[in-house]
């Protein structure tokens, strides 16, 4: 593509030989060489499947026979299906309770952890460790925790102090919060670290100035720390929301014998998608469900953009 240079030895030679390609063309050639494989990848692995998913949601494809276009029937069926709505609200329950809880706990821990110097790294490691574990493995540990006596740890402890059994995973009331706790626990480490990064990014001079002005710790927190943490908060809210909207690993592993919990009380959208597609092989219907998930996630992302625009 490029010519070997020959004027190291022959500095001036009367030649007007121009390269075959212009500089611009050569530069573009590099660009497209660099982009070629990734672009093919994006087209084949991302763009095409996206459109394919939309298309499949309009068909009755079930792996066995050819896909046939059936219009919006999958969507009509889905919206008329109580199970779908149940799952839909379950998903929102994870989101609505899980996100603020995670955020508040993570912030409180990060706020105080940031001030601790003694054995700081050790404490941070304790909080961060759950984040690097495998969700599937931890789901089983928590499942064991939640067992009724005589097996489960929590019920065992409750029994020792004379409190009756809680049927965590077997109860339509407690199953979803139980799984949510597992998910919150798993994500906390990440959120604490991000909060601490956000706190570090606030210049100390702000605090010093505020203290000079006679503000108390509480006022400093409200007037300086929290407002300056807004971008971090927005990022985390969106990040956590998306994680909860896509919750699967924990639910799948904690309810393998009655997938989605008793009476479907823990079943989130993604598990429903998984079952529709890979247990009932109703690919068309499952594709329609993924479109719903996509729409929700899109709304959340757009909300983020909107909130951040407000700021500036």
């Amino acid at each position: 593509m490029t010519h070997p240079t020959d004027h190291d030895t022959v500095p001036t030679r009367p030649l007007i030989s121009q390269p075959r390609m212009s500089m611009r063309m050569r530069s573009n050639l590099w660009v497209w060489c660099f982009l070629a494989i990734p672009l093919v990848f994006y087209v084949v692995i991302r763009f095409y499947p996206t459109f394919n998913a939309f298309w499949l949601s309009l068909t009755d494809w079930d792996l066995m026979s050819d896909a046939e276009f059936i219009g919006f029937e999958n969507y009509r069926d889905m919206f008329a299906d109580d199970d779908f709505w149940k799952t839909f609200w379950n998903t929102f329950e994870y989101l609505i309770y899980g996100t603020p809880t995670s955020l508040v706990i993570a912030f409180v821990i990060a706020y105080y952890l940031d001030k601790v110097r003694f054995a700081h790294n050790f404490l941070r490691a304790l909080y961060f460790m759950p984040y690097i574990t495998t969700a599937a493995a931890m789901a089983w540990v928590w499942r064991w925790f939640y067992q009724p006596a005589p097996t489960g740890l929590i019920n065992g402890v409750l029994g020792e102090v004379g409190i009756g059994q809680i049927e965590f995973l077997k109860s339509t009331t407690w199953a979803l919060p139980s799984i949510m706790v597992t998910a919150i626990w798993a994500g906390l480490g990440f959120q604490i670290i991000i909060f601490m990064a956000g706190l570090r990014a606030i210049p100390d001079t702000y605090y010093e100035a505020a203290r000079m002005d006679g503000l108390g710790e509480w006022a400093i927190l409200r007037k300086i720390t929290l407002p300056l943490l807004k971008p971090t908060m927005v990022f985390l809210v969106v990040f956590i929301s998306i994680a909860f909207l896509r919750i699967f690993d924990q639910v799948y592993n904690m309810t393998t014998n009655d997938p989605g919990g008793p009476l479907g009380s823990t079943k989130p959208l993604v598990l429903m998608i998984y079952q529709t597609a890979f247990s009932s092989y109703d690919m068309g219907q499952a594709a329609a469900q993924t479109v719903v998930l996509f729409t929700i996630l899109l709304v959340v992302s757009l909300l983020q953009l909107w909130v951040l625009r407000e700021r500036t």
Partner: protein
Amino acid sequence: MATITLDKLTKRFGRTEVIHGIDLAIADGEFVVFVGPSGCGKSTTLRMIAGLEEVSGGQIRIGDRVVNELDPKSRNIAMVFQNYAIYPHMTVRQNIGIGLYTSKLDKDEKARRVEEAAKLLGLEPFLERRPAALSGGQRQRVAMGRAMVRDPVAFLFDEPLSNLDAQLRAQMRIEIKALHQRLGSTIAYVTHDQVEAMTMADRIVVMRDGHILQQGRPMDIYSNPVDVFTARFIGTPSMNILAGGIEGDAPVARKGGPILLGVRPQDLLIGSAAGQVADTSGLTLWGPVTAVEPTGPETLVHFDVDGETVIGTAPGDEIPEVGARIEARAPAGAIHRFDASTKKALEPS
């Protein structure tokens, strides 16, 4: 070594033309400094010579070759950048060695060249260090070393000293100049600092808005600026420009006058110095002092003439009080005359 010739060189970014067909011939071994305010096109011109920007029109020749479409490396030039562009992950030796990246020399020869350049630049003790452990001036030398090892047909410098503090800058100016004299290489050097231009150049090329306003030896430009812009740009403090006219054969400052009178602060003398100007055909100005800047050997005096601030020079031990009314004189030979509307110099005085 080689000549560099620009022939109707044009550069467009999208629809905007930023270099308007400039012509220039840089002689073999000549040290040419491009100077002008930021955005005048001097850097773009240099980058086109280097091959980092595409040429939109016209021709660049290095030696006999048209290099418009050649890759930078095929032009056999070397360039020194404003932020040195030495790599933090490589040692000084490796950084200098990068200059020989395409060279077909054998390993020993390459090492020898690197050593040689390092010696020339006083970098020998630092060869194994990383740039982070070097001072600004040393980094600048590494960048130059990298340019030198390859023995290129021309060196291009793009504001190489602007990241250095004043003292280092002065020192490096001299080093670069000395280097040029020793190597005898062709150099194109871009700066916005007219002092650098004046002190280093064989020839200064003053650019503005994508045109070459004037080129010539530094003193020629200093004494015979072709227009108000060049006049004010070269020399520090800037030349005073006042509207005025000629009464009899003496220039007189006058608001709304038909011509512009230019006089350098160094030529506009105040206090006891003013008395030495006996020339009656010179310029005499009066006004209240607004500020004084004692610099030691002389005192720069800012005073007000009809609402315009003018700067003159008093001897170092004479510091007029602010508010005092003073008289300033310049000899006729020091007065530059410009057309008030075209801002072009009138016939040399």
